[in-house]
């Protein structure tokens, strides 16, 4: 077992990793920027070290400062969490070259899935369905137009280095295609330093279904069933569940097998997620693979009873995977709401500031993963996730009832949060009946906004 791990992250995920380490008896080192000196991850870690000023670029993204911190604190491994350096192959390499274990996949794994165009080619070759589209990079709008002639509108323009909805544009006709192509390129260049784009056909009313993977370095690999992350806004996930009301046993087997094949194709090692789009006819398409622990990993933990962060650490140590595919069972139903410091009535603008009251819900089936507390100051430098509220029930109906109940108990004052937004969704009849696609929020929330204006 590792004796000490440095957590190269902040917020709820840093706390999540500290909790896993404590339960495993592993010492923890928190890193923090000057803005985070009063954070819970600093408080609950065994040791802590300031690594830079508030901006992420000089602190949580500063590889030299983080590696130095790991060296002076004498840790054996670094857990990158999600975001920041979690999918930075170079960082994973630097760790290894400094003799520090990176808690995640190999640099090769990260690279293979990091370039979305190459990943798509690899998957197609491995026989995994991909969304119809360009073979590789689309160089200019003329080439884009000729591709669309073949696959038809609407299409999605995506960045090769993409992620998180950046450099992504939809086009419905030749005019919008030309515009969308240029803006997507500018955005991709600005966001990732790589302007390369590719094109895929738009799947109508799709659902976002992803499979959790666990793989050891000996080639053993399993999946832990699916998560549904269809409730999104501008490609940002807001509500996740496991299992999905759109996936039956047969489809789970089929998609799970594809997810395993995707991971095996690149000799994946560690915890990871294979994301698919599922269309109205039950066809599914590979979208991308995330080579990190994800925000929504918790819903899989609730239904499988497996602590994913602990397993991820064990796998990074070189342990054999302790589970077998046929013993994985999904017990009940879990839903997660991301409580963000955003104003849902004002276009989800971030609401930095000081939290006054902060009262968490409790009782049966409720889990809260959060780094906030009364008088916590929400910094403007980082993302707006305040808490993950997770409800687990015997079935979807009970999970929804518990989530509705817990949302009424959850009180945060001082800043606006997405709690009221989640209450609206959780009480929406279509949501309750499991009838939705990725456009659901844009539809119901803009209608709501309009009806309130009227």
């Amino acid at each position: 077992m590792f004796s000490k791990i440095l957590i190269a992250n902040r917020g709820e995920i840093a706390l999540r990793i500290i909790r896993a380490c404590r339960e495993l008896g592993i010492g923890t080192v928190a890193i923090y920027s000057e803005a985070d000196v009063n954070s819970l991850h600093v408080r609950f870690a065994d040791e802590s070290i300031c690594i830079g000023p508030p901006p992420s670029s000089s602190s949580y993204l500063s590889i030299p400062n983080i590696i130095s911190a790991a060296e002076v604190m004498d840790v054996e491994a670094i857990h990158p969490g999600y975001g920041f350096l979690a999918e930075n192959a170079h960082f994973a390499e630097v760790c290894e070259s400094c003799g520090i274990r990176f808690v995640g996949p190999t640099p090769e794994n990260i690279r293979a899935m990091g370039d979305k165009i190459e990943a798509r080619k690899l998957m197609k070759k491995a026989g995994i369905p991909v969304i119809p589209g360009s073979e590789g990079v689309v160089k200019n709008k003329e080439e884009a137009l000729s591709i669309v002639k073949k696959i038809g509108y609407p299409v999605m323009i995506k960045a090769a280095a993409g992620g998180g909805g950046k450099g992504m544009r939809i086009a419905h006709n030749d005019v919008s295609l030309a515009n969308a192509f240029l803006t997507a390129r500018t955005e991709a260049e600005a966001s990732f330093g790589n302007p390369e784009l590719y094109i895929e056909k738009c799947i109508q009313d799709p659902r976002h279904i992803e499979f959790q993977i666990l793989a050891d370095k000996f080639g053993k690999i399993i999946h832990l069933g699916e998560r549904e992350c269809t409730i999104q806004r501008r490609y940002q996930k807001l509500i996740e569940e496991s299992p999905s009301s759109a996936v039956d046993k047969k489809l789970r087997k089929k998609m799970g097998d594809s997810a395993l094949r995707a991971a095996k194709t690149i000799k994946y090692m560690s915890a990871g997620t294979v994301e698919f789009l599922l269309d109205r006819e039950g066809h599914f398409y590979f979208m991308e693979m995330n080579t990190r622990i994800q925000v929504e990993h918790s819903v899989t933990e609730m239904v499988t009873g497996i602590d994913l962060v602990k397993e991820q650490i064990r796998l990074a140590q070189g342990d054999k995977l302790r589970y077998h595919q046929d013993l994985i069972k999904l017990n009940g139903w879990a839903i997660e709401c991301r409580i963000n410091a955003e104003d849902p009535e004002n276009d989800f603008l971030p609401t930095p500031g000081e939290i006054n009251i902060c009262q968490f819900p409790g009782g049966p089936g409720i889990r809260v993963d959060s780094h906030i507390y009364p008088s916590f100051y929400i910094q403007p430098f980082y993302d707006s996730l305040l808490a993950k509220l997770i409800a687990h029930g015997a079935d979807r109906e009970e999970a929804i009832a518990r989530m509705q109940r817990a949302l009424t108990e959850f009180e945060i004052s001082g800043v606006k949060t997405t709690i009221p937004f989640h209450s609206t969704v959780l009480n929406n009849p279509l949501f309750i009946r499991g009838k939705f696609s990725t456009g659901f929020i844009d539809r119901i929330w803009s209608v709501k906004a309009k009806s309130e204006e009227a």
Partner: protein
Amino acid sequence: MDPKVKEEIENIIDLFKRSNLGEFEIEKEGIRLRLRKDIPAISVESTGTAAKPAIEKETEKSEKTETEEDLIPIKTPMVGTFYQASSPEATPFVEEGDIVEAEQVVCIIEAMKLMNEIKAETRGRIAKILVEDGHPVEYGQTLFLVKAE
């Protein structure tokens, strides 16, 4: 400040401390005083679980004296290991009582196998060396206190 006024404020603070109040505001003869108790989760008297920072926060103590004595801190701009000399055998760059010139190297911070020279910004006398040779330092930690000359 008028000592009488100071005493008065001290009295009020004491009153407030002993009370169960969370917030307190008073305005009197042109003076407005607002007191607030909180930040409970990170209060100093917190129980055993609180992190014990591995790196001694000497900064806190020293920065008080500094204000009193007009001491200028030299802080580290990076995380790493503090070395007073260029090699174990070499003599230290500076010792307490030495006069340093602006741009003079005062120590080395090793970070990722690289030796980074830290320089004084202004002329002055090294009043205090706050970190022991070979000890780790975190970002922004004060290494030296310098008295301007």
